């Protein structure tokens, strides 16, 4: 007997004595909405507040992004080729920006700019999808990741975002920068992923 049949056989035998099986409860999405998300603020304001609460960096203009990159001394980076024409006018000549990501030089890029498919306001979460991310590595390996976000893609809460997972092969929710507390419970940011997670609002 193969493993599939033996496992299914054992499962059926184990459950056979149960006269009644536990039913699947239905539940109202209202119960998982966070208290903070119940106020009457617009989606971007709520998103920005919640993103800051997890040490993320929400920005709402391209010049603000350039200022941040200069402050971080990040002059070499990658940008999604579809986004670059829109951003290029804001970037001075001191920057070197490539539109193909070379995996043999992952540490060459100080920042990566890719598109976010959406955001979740109540948690300050960015939603990345395979279909709209020009390179998984470019959104992950550089110290700074900039996710470009459109206002009308913001979800209010988790249940809304779950409903919109869709058919994409790889959806990633990013809530703040990569972090660990493995060493003595001390919080360190930037373990394998970005140490600085930026959301750039670009309508």
């Amino acid at each position, binding site marked *: 007997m193969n*493993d599939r049949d033996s*496992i*299914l056989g*054992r*499962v059926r*035998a*184990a*459950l056979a004595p*149960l006269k009644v*099986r*536990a039913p*699947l*409860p239905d*539940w109202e*999405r209202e*119960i*998982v909405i*966070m*208290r903070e998300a119940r106020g009457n603020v617009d989606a971007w304001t709520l998103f920005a507040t919640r993103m800051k609460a*997890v040490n993320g960096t929400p920005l709402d203009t391209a010049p603000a992004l350039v200022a941040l990159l200069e402050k971080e001394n990040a002059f070499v980076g990658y940008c999604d080729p579809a986004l670059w024409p829109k951003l290029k006018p804001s970037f001075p000549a001191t920057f070197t920006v490539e539109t193909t*990501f070379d*995996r*043999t030089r*992952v540490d060459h890029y100080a920042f990566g700019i890719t598109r976010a498919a959406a955001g979740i306001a109540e*948690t300050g979460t960015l939603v990345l999808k*395979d*279909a709209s991310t020009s*390179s*998984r*590595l470019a959104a*992950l*390996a550089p110290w700074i990741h900039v996710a470009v976000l459109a206002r009308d893609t913001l979800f209010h809460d*988790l*249940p809304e975002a*779950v*409903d919109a*997972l869709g*058919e*994409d*092969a*790889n*959806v*990633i*929710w*990013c*809530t703040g*920068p*990569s*972090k*660990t*507390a*493995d*060493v*003595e*419970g001390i919080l360190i940011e*930037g*373990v*394998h*992923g*970005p140490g600085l997670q930026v959301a750039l609002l670009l309508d």
Partner: protein
Amino acid sequence: MARQLIDQFAAQLPEDRRASVYGGSKVGHEKRTKVLFDHFPDADRLRELAGEIKQHVVENLDTYLPKIEASLIAAGVKVHWAATAEAANKAVLDIMRARGATRMVKSKTMVSEETHLADYLQQNGIDCLETDLGEFIVQIDGDHPSHIVKPIIHKNRREIAQSFERHGLGAYDDDPQTITRRARRFLRKKYLEADVALTGGNFLVAESGRLVLVTNEGNSRFCLAATKTHIAMVGIEKILPRDRDLALLLNLLARSATAQQLTVYTEFIKGPRSSTQPDGPEEMHVILVDNGRTDVLESDCREILRCIRCGACLNVCPIYRQASGHAYRSVYPGPVGAVLSPLLAGKKFPELADLPKASSLCGACNEVCPVNIPIPDLLLRLRNKGKEEGAKIASAGTPPMGGWAVLATQPMLWKTAMMGGKILDVLPEKFVPVPAFRAWTDQRTLPGWRGGVFRKWMRTRETKPRQPTVGP
């Protein structure tokens, strides 16, 4: 009367190790409570619901398993079944050999700890590297994780800096930031050189065939951005019925595990990478692992299969805090481990039959459990099983109760004993002429004697029944 093994272990635990475990678990618990109850008006209702959903899955696995298989196949995933640890390991090796692959990067998975996958692959010539910082440190130290979520809760930064120095990762420096940066630099090369990524799975959604992974460090993301083949090893009980149930379970998982609203990265994976995506696996495999779970399903403790491995019950448990995870001699420590480990052990149950005794039955584990598992009840059922099967270590540390039974079934004798008990307040315990009593008090401090107080109080009570305070 022999002491319980877990007591012996705790007694020999170095003080700095106990301090690490105690501090780490206590902080984790306190933050969790605050976050969960600050964020939601009715946090307990969420736990109950999540428990009901998972119980439904457990009791309907016969329909959910074929369902998840079909959804995964529809998403382009190759599905494998493994009845035992050996079968699971062999499935991984076979996939790697078929691809001509020799290098694996591994994200944290508890089920691969169960099967000792890393050792098995190394013995078969595969280079297998843990990428979660804690698991990486455990691996280079030849150690074992001592917590489900915080694998190196038992280690301090000095030990870690020493092992980094030993393994050529840099001169001694115990700054946690330096340690983390060094691991970052070392591991990113390894991801890019690897052929295969191995992950576990926090949830598998039956209706959509989605595999859900949560991590904070981004190591599983890197594994799945850099390699061409993805293998996920997942226990057969990890299924959720619908996508919408994720909104409930994800809200509970991170808060219970690390007091975060969400883990930093929540990945929803539905097959190999999209055709337009340059990075990531071209091939995805899911191995559905039994390895003792059907035994648990057959037992009267099947509620433990609801577990989502958050570690909240470890953090709150007074025994875990004193004894540390290694005291449980198995992959799963703490209250969940005291139930799960002996059951997963199958025929070797008698070797772990003492674990259900490692509890004061205070009930804290049940109160914090995000899927509301009645752990204390399950511990009692397993104590009974240990007793019925005559497992010797199950009775270690238990005084013979014959004398007590005589006393407690004869009212006059009991009354006299209650009054005479006062003598215990003045008589040092070591002079009590009952060896079993002395052995028991050897590890415990008795409170002052209050025998007879209840009876006195009872006599002053009125005998008429209380009026009901709430009308219909």
